């Protein structure tokens, strides 16, 4: 996956690029808006990460121009501004996701992966399948190896999100944002309890667990290695 990072803090960029490369991605970076715009339009990237506050061309404006030029590459905004209206402004300008600084690198990585993979995924499919775990989006039925699994509505939404991002790390914050639509982190990890309930339903009684906890990052639904 090719990632372009447009961020003016040189130290942060260095770590981000290093981290992404170690995760097997190709990462380039630009330190101001104009450079970022040039590189984004000439290069071929799967995900573009843009800081909102940039010298020269502002991050919002950069993305607006990209979108005006017909570019559909997913954009992840980074910002120190975490208010709901800031978030809305970022998404209105054409951003696909919004991450408030300071963030954990694992969070950034998970979101970049989610954005990059989403491009190819068809939202119109009616059935999700991960290694024998099947989800029928129309009848809302979940089965594993033919055994029916009863899920609460929220558990269903959570599993759907995990299955759509199968093989990727999904963070607690991502789950809170997409399943509960909350943009805040609770003091305790309430998500862990929900995950362990879901795990009990889909993994109990089966030899190979599908729902894994990734230490320090989040969860991952994937086939046993």
């Amino acid at each position, binding site marked *: 996956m090719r990632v372009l990072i447009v961020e003016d803090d040189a130290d942060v960029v260095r770590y981000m690029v290093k981290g992404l490369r170690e995760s097997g991605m190709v990462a380039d970076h630009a330190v101001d808006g104009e450079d970022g715009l040039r590189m984004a339009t000439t290069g071929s990237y799967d995900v573009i990460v843009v800081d909102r506050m940039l010298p020269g061309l502002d991050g919002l404006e950069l993305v607006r121009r990209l979108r005006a030029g017909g570019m559909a590459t997913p954009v992840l905004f980074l910002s120190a501004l975490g208010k709901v209206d800031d978030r809305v402004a970022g998404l209105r300008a054409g951003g696909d996701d919004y991450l408030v600084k300071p963030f954990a690198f694992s969070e950034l990585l998970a979101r970049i992966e989610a954005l990059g993979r989403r491009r190819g995924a068809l939202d119109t499919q009616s059935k999700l399948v991960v290694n024998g775990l099947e989800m029928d989006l129309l009848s809302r039925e979940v089965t594993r190896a033919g055994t029916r699994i009863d899920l609460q509505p929220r558990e269903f939404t959570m599993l759907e999100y995990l299955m759509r991002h199968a093989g990727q790390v999904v963070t607690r914050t991502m789950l809170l944002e997409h399943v*509960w639509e909350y943009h*805040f*982190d609770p*003091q*305790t990890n*309430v998500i862990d*309890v929900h995950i362990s309930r879901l795990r009990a339903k889909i993994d109990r009684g089966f030899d190979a667990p599908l729902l894994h906890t990734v*230490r320090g990052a989040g969860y991952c639904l994937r086939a046993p290695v």
Partner: protein
Amino acid sequence: MRRCCTRCAARGTVSVPRSKLLRTSTFRLALIYLALFTVSALCVLGFVYWNTAGFIAKQTDETIRAEITGLGEQYRVTGLTGLTAVVIERSRNQRESLYLLTTADGRPLAGNLDSMPPAPAGTAGWIDFAYGRTVGGVDLEHQARARLLLLPGGFRLLVGRDVEARQLFQRRLRETVLWALALTVAFGLAGGVLMSRRLLRRVETVNAAARGIMAGDLTRRVAIRGSGDELDQLAVNVNAMLDRIEQLLDAMRQVTDNIAHDLRGPLHRLRTRLEVTLAQPEDPQACRAALEDTVAEAEALLNTFNALLLIAELDAGAQSAQLVPLDFGALARDVAELYAPLAEDHGLALTVETADGLTVAGERHLLSQALSNLLDNAIKYTPRGGEVCVAARRGAQGCELSVTDSGPGIPAADRERVQDRFVRLEASRHRTGSGLGLSLVRAVVRVHGGALRLEDREDGTAGLRAVVVLPARPR
């Protein structure tokens, strides 16, 4: 503005020494009042003087005129002989009245004056003159006023009155008026000086308190005399203002102290862990574990900072939340649902009671976060087997969202205090937590124009009821 001395100038203040009294505004005011007072006294006394003196002079003239009329009548009736007899008669009896009847060549026929006054003889006007008079064997010169009556045949009759007493009275009157004026000015001046000094002394106490405070003594206050006048009210207001400033400074100092104290601990642990790891022989597994712990700790620190920042922004009104109509009940149910598994894991019965149609103006994320904090606390502090109830209903003051638990509760005396930043009660010291949860709830609730109340359970059993009251949105 001139500075009174370099010491004050250095501190940027001005004090009023007694020697510079003349420059003070109170003294200037006293002077203006004195001038007004003097002018009005002058008018009153002048009026009294002119009225009194003029009245007496007019009376003298009236008497003379009446006598001349009477004597003229006498002449017409009884002729010169009769007139002469009357003049002689009157000259003998009257002491203040003066008469002189002369022939055409000025020879006296009768009267108590020796000679015609030199003044405009032959006219019918008024004559003011001095004449010699012997009183008790002493020759005195007295002032007199008279009028001439010309009779046929060149005879002339002078009728006058001794005005010595009158003039003496007028002189006395003048002197009295002048003295009164002088006393008025003197008393006014002295009063003005005393009054302005007294006023200055009281202003000076305010100044002194202000200087003391600027010098760093925040406990200084202006003395209040208890008279309830404007200066006392000023002092009361200044003191109230100082109390408020001191309160705010104390709160700020408290917060800063708490931040320093609460963040130094984790940072210290973090450094120690890294140092110890560095000092140990290389062991990738130990290094990894230490780094993971460090990341977790750093994350907790960042969360604390984020919460602090959010509270500060909310308090400053910077987070002017976009308030939109929200279903309070649905919001409560959603957050309760998020926490239901956690409560169950803690062995707690979580119940939700929400009324329908509770619409408030709010920001969903902030209110959800507030409720999440309250639920977090309730689950954290309620012992296994207890209960937690989330309820949304219409109350007397608006929409109420409450979280009731069967935990240890909070002593009534501490309920206000625990809402402050970093305040954690002794009983909860050993538990994890930032001490910011309730502060954030309070900040969120305030932004929504509501209030956070911590109270006893409604059924009287042990536990805590945390209530968020938001104004109900008019339909």
